[in-house]
C-alpha cells in the first residue's frame, strides 16, 4: 500500500509540484490578511460570553475610565504655578486635535467645593487663579475630593495626569488608531518641552495595546529566525549536507505556510497565545521529516536504491509518524473544545498545523526525496546514535536492578506533584502580562501615584427615580466603603460620592456634611445642577441606573476575587432589600473571571487531551494495561512543572499554563514507541523481560533523545520573549520535555518491567505492524 502510494506520488510528481506551488501561493495570499493584535478585548469578547453585553452596555452608558491616552506628570508640587501653566499649555495644545473627544486635566476638570460662603462650581483651575491663595484653595479641593483624588491628582500633589479620551473608543479602536493617538500626544509633548523639575510619561490603555502588539511582532521576528537557526544547527550536526537541511525545512515550512493560509479563516488576529504557534509548529513539524530523512539515508547506506530506500523508510516510519502526529494533533484539538476563542483557536490551528505537517511529511518530503539528487556526503548521524546506544545499555543495567526504589521515588514525586498541583495560585494579572520596559513602568507608576488600570464597576439598577432616594445613595455609599477597605483599591467614585461632595459644598465645606442628605428633594435639586455630560458619567436621565467605579492596582486576580466576593455579599445585603439590583462588571469584572476561567479551561484541556490519548492508546494497542502504564510517566512531567511553579511561587496565568499544551503535544510519543517496540520484540520470540526492555530502550532511546533535544531547543526560543509569561512558558516547556524524556526512559521502562504482561505474546495491533515492518522488499527503481 505504502509502496503503491509512493510510486503514484513519484509518477505524478510534476502535477503534484504544480498543485503544491498553487496551494503555497494561495496560502501566502491568504496569510497576508493576518492581523497581529495584542488586544485584551480578544481575551473576553466571544459570542458565548454573557458578560460582554453587560460591559458594553455599561461602557455605552457610563464610558470606560481606562480609554485614555494618559500623560503622567510628576513634579515636587504639580500645583506650582509654572507646572499648572505647563499643564494648561499641554491641555490647550491637545484640545484642537480631532483624535480626542475630551482632554481632561487639572486645569479644566470640573469640581464643586465651598469657598467661604460661595459654592465654587465649574472648572477647577481655568483660568489659573492670579493669586496663590486661589491655587491653594483649588489644591485643597482637588486633593480632598474623592472625585478627583487619585483619578487626576495624587494625594500628595506630586503627580497629575492629562487624560486624552479618544474620539473612537479604545475598545473599538484599531491598533493604528491607538498608535495615532499616542503619536499625537507625543508630538505635543515634543513641541512643548517640560519645564525643569517636571517628569512626563505617556501611558494608559492604548499604550498597553500598541506596545504589546509591537512587541508581539518583535517577538515573532526573534522566535522564528532563532527557531530556524536552532533547527538549522541541529540538521547540520545530524546530516552535514545542504540536502539534509533543505528537505526537512521544505516540508515543515510548507506545512507552516498552509497553516497560516488557513488561519485567517478563523477570523481572529494573532494574539499573545497564538503568537506561540509558528515556533511550536516549526518545532513539532520538523521532527518527523528528520526521522524519515535519517531512515532514508540509513537505507541508502545499506545499499538500497533511492526509490527502494524511500519506500523502506516510509514503510517503517509511515504509521509511527501518523500515530505520533495523530495523538499530538488530538491533544491540541482537545483545546479546540474550550469555550474561550483564543484557546480554541490555538487548539484548532496547532492541531491543523500538526496534521498538515504530517501531510507534508507524507507528500512534500517523498516528492523531494524522489526528485532531488541524493547527497554525495554519507549520513554521519550513526556515530552519535552509537554513543547514545552505549549510554542506554549502561542506563538500563542501572535501572533494572533498582526498579522498586525508582517506583518509590516516582510515587513520592507523584504525591508531592499532586499536592503541589492542588496548591496552585491562579492569579491573572493584566499588568503582569506586560513586558518590562517603559509601558509597564508607566502603568506601575500610574498605579503608585494615581490609579491602576484595573477598572471594576458595580452597575446598579432599580425603578425609575430610585437613584435619587437617600436610602439607596446611602447603601451605595456603604458599598463604596466596602471596596475602599482593600489596600489595592485606589479610588471609588459613585453618585453617592458626588451628592455627598455637593452637600458639603452647599454647607460651607464642613467635612461632617460630606454625607448623603436626608431629603430626597435636596438630592434631586443637587442633581439638577449637573449637565448631561456630567450626569451621564454617574446616572442615566431616568435615575434608574447608576454605578460605582472602582479603580485599583493590578495585584493579581486572586486578590480581586476576594474583593469581588465580598462586594457580592455586600450588594445582597445593601441593595436587595431596597429592590435594587447590583452587578459586578467593568473591564476587571469581565476580564478577570475570563482570564482565570481560561486557565482552568487550559488545565481541563490538558486532562481531556490526556484522557483522549490514553483512550487512543488503549484502542491502538488493544491493551488497557499499556494505556494505564502510560499514565504515570506522562503525568509526571506536568506534575514536575507544578512543583517548579510552586517552589518559585509562579502564579498560574495564561502564558504559564500554556506549557500544558506542549505536554500534550510532546509527551506520550516515546511511551507509544517503547510499548510498540516491546510487543514487537515479544512477537519476534523474545521472552526475557529484561532483554525486551533493553532492546526497546536501545531502539527508541536515541530518537526519543533527539526529539527531546529538538523540541526543548525549539521551545527554548520562548525564553527570549519580551512577555514574562511567554518566557516562563519557554522554561516550563523545556522542563516538561526534558523531564518527559527522563520519565519515559526511567519510569516507563520500570513500569513496563514491573506491570507489563511479558508472557502473553503481542497481539497484532496497528502500532506494532508499523513499528515492525516486514523485511524491506527489494524494489527496482521506478525510473
Amino acid at each position: 500500500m505504502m509502496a503503491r502510494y509512493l510510486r503514484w506520488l513519484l509518477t505524478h510528481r510534476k502535477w503534484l509540484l504544480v498543485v503544491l506551488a498553487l496551494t503555497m501561493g494561495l496560502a501566502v495570499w491568504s496569510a497576508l490578511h493576518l492581523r497581529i493584535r495584542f488586544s485584551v478585548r480578544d481575551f473576553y469578547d466571544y459570542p458565548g460570553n454573557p458578560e460582554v453585553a453587560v460591559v458594553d452596555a455599561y461602557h455605552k452608558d457610563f464610558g470606560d475610565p481606562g480609554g485614555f491616552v494618559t500623560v503622567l506628570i510628576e513634579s515636587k508640587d504639580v500645583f506650582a504655578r509654572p507646572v499648572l501653566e505647563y499643564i494648561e499649555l499641554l491641555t490647550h495644545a491637545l484640545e484642537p486635535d480631532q483624535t480626542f473627544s475630551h482632554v481632561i486635566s487639572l486645569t479644566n476638570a470640573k469640581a464643586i467645593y465651598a469657598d467661604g460662603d460661595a459654592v465654587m462650581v465649574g472648572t477647577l483651575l481655568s483660568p489659573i487663579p492670579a493669586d496663590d491663595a486661589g491655587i491653594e484653595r483649588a489644591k485643597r479641593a482637588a486633593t480632598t475630593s474623592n472625585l478627583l483624588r487619585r483619578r487626576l491628582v495624587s494625594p500628595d500633589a506630586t503627580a497629575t495626569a492629562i487624560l486624552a479620551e479618544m474620539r473612537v473608543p479604545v475598545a473599538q479602536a484599531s491598533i493604528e488608531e491607538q498608535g495615532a493617538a499616542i503619536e499625537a500626544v507625543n508630538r505635543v509633548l515634543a513641541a512643548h518641552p517640560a519645564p525643569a523639575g517636571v517628569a512626563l510619561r505617556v501611558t494608559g490603555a492604548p499604550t498597553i495595546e500598541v506596545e504589546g502588539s509591537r512587541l508581539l511582532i518583535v517577538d515573532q521576528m526573534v522566535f522564528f529566525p532563532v527557531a530556524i537557526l536552532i533547527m538549522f544547527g541541529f540538521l547540520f550536526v545530524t546530516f552535514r549536507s545542504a540536502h539534509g537541511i533543505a528537505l526537512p525545512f521544505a516540508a515543515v515550512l510548507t506545512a507552516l505556510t498552509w497553516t497560516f493560509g488557513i488561519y485567517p479563516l478563523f477570523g481572529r488576529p494573532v494574539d499573545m497565545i497564538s503568537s506561540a504557534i509558528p515556533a511550536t509548529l516549526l518545532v513539532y513539524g520538523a521532527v518527523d521529516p528528520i526521522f524519515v530523512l535519517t531512515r532514508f539515508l540509513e537505507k541508502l547506506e545499506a545499499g538500497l536504491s533511492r526509490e527502494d530506500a524511500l519506500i523502506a523508510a516510509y514503510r517503517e516510519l509511515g504509521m509511527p509518524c501518523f500515530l505520533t502526529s495523530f495523538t499530538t494533533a488530538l491533544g491540541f484539538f482537545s483545546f479546540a473544545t474550550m469555550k474561550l476563542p483564543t484557546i480554541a483557536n490555538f487548539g484548532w490551528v496547532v492541531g491543523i498545523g500538526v496534521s498538515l505537517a504530517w501531510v507534508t511529511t507524507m507528500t512534500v518530503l517523498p516528492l523531494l526525496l524522489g526528485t532531488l539528487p541524493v547527497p554525495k556526503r554519507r549520513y554521519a548521524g550513526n556515530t552519535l546514535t552509537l554513543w547514545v546506544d552505549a549510554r542506554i545499555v549502561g542506563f538500563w543495567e542501572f535501572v533494572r536492578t533498582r526498579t522498586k526504589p525508582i517506583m518509590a521515588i516516582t510515587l513520592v514525586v507523584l504525591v508531592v506533584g499532586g499536592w503541589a498541583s492542588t496548591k496552585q495560585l491562579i492569579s491573572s494579572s493584566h499588568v503582569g502580562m506586560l513586558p518590562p520596559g517603559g509601558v509597564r513602568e508607566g502603568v506601575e507608576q500610574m498605579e503608585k501615584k494615581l490609579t491602576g488600570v484595573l477598572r471594576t464597576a458595580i452597575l446598579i439598577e432599580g425603578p425609575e427615580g430610585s437613584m435619587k432616594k437617600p436610602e439607596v445613595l446611602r447603601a451605595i455609599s456603604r458599598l463604596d466603603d466596602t471596596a475602599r477597605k482593600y489596600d489595592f483599591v485606589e479610588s471609588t467614585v459613585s453618585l453617592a460620592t458626588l451628592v455627598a461632595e455637593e452637600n458639603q459644598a452647599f454647607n460651607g465645606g464642613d467635612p461632617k456634611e460630606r454625607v448623603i442628605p436626608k431629603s430626597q428633594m435636596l438630592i434631586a435639586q443637587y442633581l439638577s445642577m449637573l449637565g448631561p455630560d456630567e450626569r451621564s458619567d454617574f446616572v442615566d436621565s431616568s435615575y434608574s441606573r447608576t454605578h460605582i467605579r472602582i479603580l485599583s492596582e493590578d495585584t493579581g486576580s486572586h486578590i480581586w476575587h476576594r474583593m469581588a466576593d465580598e462586594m457580592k455579599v455586600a450588594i445582597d445585603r445593601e441593595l436587595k432589600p431596597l429592590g435594587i439590583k447590583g452587578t459586578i462588571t467593568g473591564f476587571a469584572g469581565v476580564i478577570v473571571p475570563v482570564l482565570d476561567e481560561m486557565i482552568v479551561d487550559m488545565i481541563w484541556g490538558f486532562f481531556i487531551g490526556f484522557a483522549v490519548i490514553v483512550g487512543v492508546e488503549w484502542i491502538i494497542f488493544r491493551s488497557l494495561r499499556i494505556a494505564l502504564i502510560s499514565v504515570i510517566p506522562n503525568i509526571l512531567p506536568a506534575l514536575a512543572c507544578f512543583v517548579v511553579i510552586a517552589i518559585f511561587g509562579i502564579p498560574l496565568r495564561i502564558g504559564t499554563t500554556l506549557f500544558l499544551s506542549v505536554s500534550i503535544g510532546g509527551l506520550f510519543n516515546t511511551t507509544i514507541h517503547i510499548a510498540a517496540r516491546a510487543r514487537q520484540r515479544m512477537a519476534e520470540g523474545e521472552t526475557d523481560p529484561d532483554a525486551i526492555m533493553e532492546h526497546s530502550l536501545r531502539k527508541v532511546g536515541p530518537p526519543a533523545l533527539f526529539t527531546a533535544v529538538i523540541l526543548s531547543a525549539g521551545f527554548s526560543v520562548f525564553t527570549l520573549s519580551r512577555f514574562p509569561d511567554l518566557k516562563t512558558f519557554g522554561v516550563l516547556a523545556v522542563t516538561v520535555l526534558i523531564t518527559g524524556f527522563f520519565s519515559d526512559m526511567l519510569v516507563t521502562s520500570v513500569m513496563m518491567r514491573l506491570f507489563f504482561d511479558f508472557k502473553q505474546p503481542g497481539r497484532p495491533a496497528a502500532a506494532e505492524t508499523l513499528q515492525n515492518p516486514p523485511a524491506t522488499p527489494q524494489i527496482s527503481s521506478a525510473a
Partner: protein
Amino acid sequence: MNPIFIAALSLALVAGSAARAAAPAASEIIGKVLDADPWGLAGAEVDARVIKRDKRNSTEELAFHAISRKYAPPLAKSLVRFSAPADLAGSGFLQTQKDKGDDERYLYLPELKRARRIAGSLRANAFMGTDFSFADMDRRDLRDGASTVKGEEKIGKYACWIVETTPLKKGDSEYGRIVMWVREDNFVPLRMQMFDKAQVLLKTLTTEEVRRVGGTWFITRSKMVNHREQHQTELTLTKVQPKNDVPEDQFTVRNLEKQ
C-alpha cells in the same frame, strides 16, 4: 470682445460688489442680534417649558418663569424660578451679567432654605441640566469674540447672513468657534453651530418657531442638540412678553429666597 458682453459683465460685477457692500459688518450684526434679544433673556417676562431628551429617548421636563431687565445694555439681570418637576419646584437662579469679571450668580434651593452664591469658572457648565451652558446664556462669546461675515445662505425662505465668531478668551469658553445664521430681515438667529476646540461640531441650536410680540421677535421654540452626548433640549416659550420695566428690587437675593 463683444462690448455688450463686457458691459453685462461690468454690471454684474458692480451689482455683486453692491450686494456685498450691503452686508453690515459682523460686529454690527452681532450687536443687533444681542440688542434684539430674541431669546427673551434681557428685558422680558417668559414662561417656558423645557424637554430634555437623552440618547435612549427618555425625557425629562422642566418648567420655569423668568424675568429680566437690561441694566447697562447689552448687560442684563435675570431671575429664573422653576415650577417643575415637583422636586425642583421653587428653586431659583439669579444672574447679573458683568462686563468685566465673573457674572454674579445665586442659586436658591428650597430644601436649603437660603440662596448660595455660585462662583467659579462655570461657563462650560450646563444650565440646570439642560444642553444650554452658562456660556450659551450669557452670550459673552458673541459679545467679546472676533466675528466675521462668512457669506449668505437661505434657510427656508429666509435670507441669512452667516456670521462666524471665535471666542476670544482661551480656556474661558467651551467653544472653539460659533457659526450663526442670522435672518437678514429681523436679526433673529435661525441656526447656531457650536464647535469644540478641535473644530468638531459640538452643539446645534435650531430655531423652530419665531413670533413677534409687542414689536419684538422672539424665538418661541428652539432645539439645542448636543452631538457628543447625543442629548437634546427643546425649549418652548409658552408665554413671552417684552418687559423692561421689571422693578430692580426683583433681582435681589432676598427676592430669590422668597418662594
